[in-house]
C-alpha cells in the first residue's frame, strides 16, 4: 500500500496545516472506562497513527479539495463533516451504479442509508471507503479524499461488510485477534480488549468456537466486534443487523448510539426501514439515486406532505362537514378511516389539534380524540419510492 503523503510534510508544516476535522492520535488515546465501557484502560492503537498526515491536498480548512478525475480543480469549502460528497457518481454498467450523491454527514452522528436491495448502498460504502474509485464528483472522508488514504488515515476507519469476511477455520477469539492486528492494536492490553469486545457481543463463552461452527447471528456479532476492536472514528456498517433477532438488533443500535455519544460517526445501511428512527439523518436511496435525505421526522413530513393527525368524532360527518373540517385544519390531504374517523395531513399537528377542538365545539360536533399519527418508516419509505416512480413516469 503506498503511503501517498508520508514524509512529504514536515512536522512544522503539519502542525500548521492540520485541520479541525483531523482527529489527533498523536498520543495514545486516553480512555475513560466510565464513559467508554468497551474501551478499558490500556487499550492503545500503535503510534503509527501518531499524526494524521496533512498533505497539500488533504486540508479542509478552506483549501483545495482533490477531485477524483482530472477535471480542472474546483475550489470548494466543505463543512466540518465526517463525510462530504458532491455529485459523486459511479456507473458499473449503463443505468446501474450510484449517481450524483450529495452527502454531508456531521461528525458524531448516525447516518442511515436506506434502500431496497440493489439500490447502491454497498457501492456507496465502497466509494466512501476508497475500495473503488468514483467516476466523477468530489469526496472528502475525514477531510481527505479516500483515494489518498494512507495507512494512518485508514486506521481511523471501521468497516463491517455485508457478508462475513472472517475466517471459518479460526476461533472467534482468533478472528478478533486477527482484526486487532490488522489495525495495529497493541499487544499490551489487547487480551483484555478482545475479551471486552467478545463480552459486549455476548460471545465470550463461545470464544473458542470455530467460526464455521457459529450461527449466522454469532458471525454478525463477531463482525461488529471486529469492526469496533480498534475504536475507529468513522464506522461504515453495511447492513449490520441483517439476519439477527430483534433483541440483538436493539442491542446493536443501543451500542451505535453509545458510540455516537462518544463522538464517533456511523454510516449505516439497512433494509429494516424502521431502524431509520435511530438515525440522526437518513438518506433514502433508490436505483442509485438519493431521493431524500433528512432527519427521520423530516422524512416523514416529506413522505406524507406534512404531519399526520388522526381525529375521531362521536358520529360520522357529512360531506359538507368534512369539507369544513379539512378547511379548518388546513389539511393538504385527508382520508376517512371509518365511521367518524379521519386522518388529516397538516402543516403543524400541535397547532391544528388545538384549533380543531374549538372548531368542533363551534360546529356542535363531539371530538372523541385528536392524536398525532407517526406513520411507520416502512410506509414513509414506500411513499417516497412510489412518488419517485410516479415522477419518473410522468417525466416520460
Amino acid at each position, binding site marked *: 500500500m503506498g503511503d501517498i503523503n508520508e514524509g512529504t510534510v514536515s512536522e512544522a508544516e503539519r502542525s500548521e496545516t492540520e485541520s479541525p476535522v483531523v482527529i489527533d492520535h498523536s498520543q495514545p488515546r486516553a480512555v475513560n472506562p466510565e464513559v467508554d465501557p468497551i474501551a478499558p484502560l490500556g487499550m492503545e492503537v500503535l503510534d503509527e497513527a501518531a499524526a494524521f498526515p496533512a498533505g497539500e491536498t488533504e486540508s479542509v480548512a478552506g483549501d483545495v479539495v482533490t477531485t477524483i478525475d482530472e477535471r480542472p480543480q474546483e475550489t470548494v469549502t466543505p463543512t466540518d463533516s465526517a463525510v462530504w460528497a458532491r455529485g459523486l457518481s459511479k456507473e458499473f454498467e449503463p443505468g446501474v451504479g450510484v449517481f450524483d450523491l450529495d452527502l454531508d454527514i456531521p461528525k458524531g452522528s448516525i447516518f442511515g442509508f436506506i434502500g431496497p436491495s440493489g439500490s447502491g448502498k454497498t457501492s456507496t460504502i465502497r466509494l466512501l471507503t476508497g475500495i473503488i474509485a468514483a467516476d466523477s464528483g468530489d469526496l472528502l472522508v475525514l477531510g481527505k479524499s*479516500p483515494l489518498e488514504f494512507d495507512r494512518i488515515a485508514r486506521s481511523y476507519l471501521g468497516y463491517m461488510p455485508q457478508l462475513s469476511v472472517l475466517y471459518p477455520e479460526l476461533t472467534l477469539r482468533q478472528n478478533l485477534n486477527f482484526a486487532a492486528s490488522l489495525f495495529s492494536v497493541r499487544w499490551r492490553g489487547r487480551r483484555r480488549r478482545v475479551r471486552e469486545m467478545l463480552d459486549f457481543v455476548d460471545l465470550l463463552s463461545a470464544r473458542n468456537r470455530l467460526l464455521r461452527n457459529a450461527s449466522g447471528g454469532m458471525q454478525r456479532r463477531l463482525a461488529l466486534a471486529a469492526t469496533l476492536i480498534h475504536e475507529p472514528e468513522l464506522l461504515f456498517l453495511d447492513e449490520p443487523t441483517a439476519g439477527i433477532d430483534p433483541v440483538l438488533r436493539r442491542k446493536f443500535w443501543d451500542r451505535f448510539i453509545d458510540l455516537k455519544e462518544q463522538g464517533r460517526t456511523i454510516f449505516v445501511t439497512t433494509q429494516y426501514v424502521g431502524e431509520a428512527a435511530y438515525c440522526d439523518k437518513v438518506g433514502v436511496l433508490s436505483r442509485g439515486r438519493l431521493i431524500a435525505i433528512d432527519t427521520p421526522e423530516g422524512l416523514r413530513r416529506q413522505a406524507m406532505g406534512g404531519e399526520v393527525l388522526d381525529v375521531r368524532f362521536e358520529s360520522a360527518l357529512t360531506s359538507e362537514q368534512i369539507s369544513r373540517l379539512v378547511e379548518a385544519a388546513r389539511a393538504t390531504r385527508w382520508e376517512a378511516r371509518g365511521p367518524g374517523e379521519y386522518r388529516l395531513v397538516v402543516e403543524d399537528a400541535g397547532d391544528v389539534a388545538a384549533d380543531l377542538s374549538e372548531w368542533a365545539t363551534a360546529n356542535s360536533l363531539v371530538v372523541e380524540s385528536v392524536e398525532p399519527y407517526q406513520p411507520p418508516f416502512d410506509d414513509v419509505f414506500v411513499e417516497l419510492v412510489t412518488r419517485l416512480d410516479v415522477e419518473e413516469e410522468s417525466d416520460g
Partner: protein
Amino acid sequence: MAKPVERVKGRFMRAMAFFKKDTLEVFRQPRLLITLVVGPFLILFLFGVGFNPEPPVLRTVVVAPSDSGIAERSEQLAHALGPQAQLVGTLTSVEEAEAMLASGEANVAVVIPSDVVETVRGGEQAVITILHDQIDPFESSVVELFAQSAVDQVNREVLEEVVAAGQGRAAEIGAPLPAAQTAVGAMIDAVDANDRVAFESSRADLIASLDELARRVAASDAVIEAVGEQTSSEPSGSALDSALANADQLNQPDVRDERAEILTALEQNLEDLEADIENFQAIEPAVLVSPFRGESSGYGGIDVDFTHYYIPGVVSLLVQHLALTFAALSLVRERTLGSVELFRVSPLSGAEALAGKYLANVVIGLLVGAALTAASVFAFGFQPEGPWWWYGLAVLLVVLASQGLGFVLSALAKTESQAVQYAMITLLVSIFFSGFFISTARLLPAVQVVSYLIPATYGIKALQDIAFWGRLPSIEIILGAVLYSFVLGALALAFMRRRVTAAQLSRKQRRLARAAA
C-alpha cells in the same frame, strides 16, 4: 509523523497476523493436508515400494527345423534372451508360434532359419527372427535389445565351439616343433664342428619343420594377433615368423660369422613358439572369442539405491506442490470470502500480507519437507552425503520459489477448485519435466525451458547433488533458484498490492492535485 520504530512494529504485527492466521488455517484442515501431502506421498511410496526393476517374465517359444541342432539347445537359446525369458515350448512352424503369440500363451518367439549352413556358405548371414507381443514401446525396445543380445550370444557360442575345436587340435599343431628344435641343435653342433654338409642338411630339416608348423598354427595365431590389433597394442608378432626369418637369414653368405648368434635366437624363437602353443591351449575359448567384458561402477564409489534415487525428487515435488497449493488457495479463499474488502479499508499493505503468508508457508513447507525426509530416513535408510543444513536450504529454496508460483497462479484462478486444478496441472507438468522420472537432459533444449519454469527442477538437481555427491549444487542451479524466487516473489507482490490496496489516485492525478493546491 509516526515514529519509524512504531511503523516497523505495526508492519510486523500485521505480517505476523497473516503468518498466524495462515498457519492455523492449514493445521485446522487436516483433510486438506492429507489430500495434498500424505495422499501424493503414499502414491509415490507405493510406487517406490511396488516397482520391480526386473523386466517382466517373457514366455518364449523357439521355432527351429526338426533336424536343426539348435532345436536341442532351445533352453540355452531362450536363456540367452535374458533372465526374464522362460522357455514354454519348442516348435517347428512359425504359424504355431504366431498362434501362441496371438492367444497370449507366448510373449516371444525365436525363429531359427532352416538353411543356416547354406546361407553362411553362400557368404551371407543367417537371420534369426524374434517375434513379440509387446505394445509398450519401452518393453518393446527392451525385447529388441535382449533379442540382439541373444543373437550375439549365439554367434559367440558358435565361435567358442570353433575355437575349442581348434584348441583340441593344438597338440597336432605343435607336432613338428620337436623336429625343428632337433634340427637347430644339430646346426649348432655343425657350426661348432665346422661341418658345412651337416649344417645344410639340418637347415633343410628345420625349414621343412617350420613350414609345417606355419601351416598348422596360422589360423589360431591370427586370433591372438587380431586381439592385439583391436586393442591398439603393439602386435606381439609371431615367434614362428621370427623363426622363419632367422632360418632364411642362415642361408645368406654374409652372416657366416653370426651363425651362432642367429641359431641361439632361433632356439629361443622355437621355445617361445612352444610356449605360445601351450598358452593357446590353456586359454578359455570364451575368452578368445570375447576377450573383453565391461564392468561399470559409479565414479567415486557412489552407488545410489533405486529407492534412494527418487527421494530428492519426491521431497522436491511434494514440497513444491504443497507450498504452491497453499499459497494459491490462501489468496483465492480471501478473495472469495471477501476478506480483501476489509484489507482495502485497513492499514494493511500488500508487502505485509505477503510477508506473513510467505513466512507461514515456509514454516509449513519446511515441516512437511522434514517429515518426508524423516520418513525416508526411517523407512529407507536415506542419508545424504552432504550436510543437513545444505539439504534444508535447498528445500527452503523450493518452498520460496513454489510460493511465488502459487501466488501468481492464484491471480488466474477465480475459485478454490480452479486453484486446486492449476496446482494439479503444475504437479503433472513437474512429474514429466522436472527430472523426476526422466532426466531433463533427455528433453530437447527448447523443451528444457519448461523444466526451468518448475521450482522442483532446481530442488531435484540441488538435492541430488547434496544427497548423492555430497557437494554444493552448481552455481547455475543456486542462482537460478534464487532468481526464480525473486522474480516470482516480485510478481506476487505486485499482484498482492493490487488485491489488498484500495483505489488510489494515479501519479499523474496526484501531481495535478498538488499543482492545483
